[in-house]
């Protein structure tokens, strides 16, 4: 986690992307907001980037590489795993099995995406505040 780094959002749904884009625009954080509609592209980005992200939000239900498969790949690669903290799931449903599996791969939060704009904004603000309060590991390879 790098508090000045980009906020990475892995989300294939265009409507959800648009709503998140509006929320972040309104919240006006200094961090760059980077969207990936394709989880494979997100993995490629995380693998090569030298700028550690501030927070990673990932959807679960995505074509090709699902959010759970992507997390598995990140978790199994130490460099990638240490670069990708905090890693949060941001998804439509929260079945108990998915939640347990997610925490077994060392995530730092699992949120059900609010569908209402005002609520989404409150949730995003709270998540950002929590991670601003936490200590950043300043991971250097």
């Amino acid at each position: 986690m790098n508090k000045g780094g980009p906020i990475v959002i892995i989300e294939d749904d265009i409507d959800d992307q648009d709503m998140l884009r509006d929320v972040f625009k309104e919240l006006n954080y200094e961090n760059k907001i980077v969207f990936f509609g394709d989880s494979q592209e997100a993995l490629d980005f995380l693998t090569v980037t030298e700028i550690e992200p501030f927070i990673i939000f990932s959807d679960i239900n995505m074509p090709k590489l699902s959010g759970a498969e992507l997390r598995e790949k990140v978790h199994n690669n130490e460099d990638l795993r240490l670069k990708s903290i905090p890693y949060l799931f941001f998804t439509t449903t929260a079945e108990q099995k998915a939640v347990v599996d997610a925490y077994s791969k060392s995530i730092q939060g699992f949120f059900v995406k609010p569908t209402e704009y005002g609520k989404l904004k409150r949730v995003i603000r709270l998540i950002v505040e929590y991670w601003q309060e936490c200590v950043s590991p300043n991971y250097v390879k």
Partner: protein
Amino acid sequence: MTTTTSNSNPIIIIDDDIDDIELFQEGFKELGIENEIMVFTDGNKFYDYISTTDRKSFFVFCDINMNGLNGFELKKKIFNNEEIRLKCIPFLMLSTSGSSKSVLEAYSLNVQGYFIKPNTVQGIKDMFEIVVKYWSISQRPASEQ
């Protein structure tokens, strides 16, 4: 002001510094948090408790510098037992220092947050308020409340 929580399970504090514990309790009280606060001043006693209890917790806050079993040793012990590991989520580290090495080590042991101990009641209230709100909305294993 009262901070409402959506989770009525106890909040667990593992810390052997009595002054800090008093500050934490004062912070929770001033925030109007009504959850039971369970305090363990010995990491081994917490491990014994969590190994045998059926009770869930809202979140676990663990100090790093403790006599006997320190926070890292305790978290390692928990990490190595899958059943207990799932019972201790979220597990949050609290320390007076935040060197890069210890923060990374903590996250490698599957913690959900690492905080520097605030030294004022106001600082503690601000920290707990955010933690309580975050874990009131984040899902966790067996989060039926």
